[in-house]
């Protein structure tokens, strides 16, 4: 279905906007928020594209990303809390 492609284009634009926050963000937590948003959007995009290409197996990648993307966030959050070192 073509609608999934169009939705994906818009989600991609939303992703670019969140990359803008990565550029602008004055502090590191702001940037982390940008990347976190990007994570969620990419998961949405992967699911949508999986339906658009009509392949089931592509959705596995979305699961992997949904499960693992927050590890990066947590590592940086822990560093900011002073828990590493």
């Amino acid at each position, binding site marked *: 279905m073509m609608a999934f492609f169009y939705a994906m284009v818009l989600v991609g634009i939303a992703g670019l*906007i969140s990359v803008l926050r990565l550029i602008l963000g004055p502090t590191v937590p702001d940037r982390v928020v940008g990347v976190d948003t990007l994570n969620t959007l990419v998961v949405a995009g992967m699911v949508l594209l999986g339906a658009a290409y009509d392949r089931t197996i592509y959705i596995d990648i979305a699961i992997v990303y949904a*499960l693992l993307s927050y590890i990066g966030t947590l590592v*940086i959050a822990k560093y900011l809390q002073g828990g590493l070192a």
Partner: protein
Amino acid sequence: MNYVETLIYIFLGISVAFNLLGSFALLRFPDVYTRLHGATKCTTFGTIFAVFAVVTHALYQLHRTGDSKYLQMALHSFIALIALLLTNPTGAHAIAKAAHLSGVKPVRAVVDAYEEKLGGGSE
């Protein structure tokens, strides 16, 4: 266009609208905490609807063709949704706590109870 496709279009519309809204919230709000509200939550909501659209599509195709790969598509999308719902708020919470502990104060806050607690603890 039958009603199932209409439903899919509605879901996709809501999904895209909220995703874009979340991204705009990221630009519009003044500090980390309010951005977190806009960003991670609105996009999560948008993603939920994207998954709903895909699940609806898959179930409809399953009904039409009886191919088991569409069942898998629905289930896997559902698991992706569960994973997202488990991990995303945890990440948001971690960022908020880290931001507060690293010294980013909420802008225009009328009250900051956590600051009071931390201040009371250290002095």
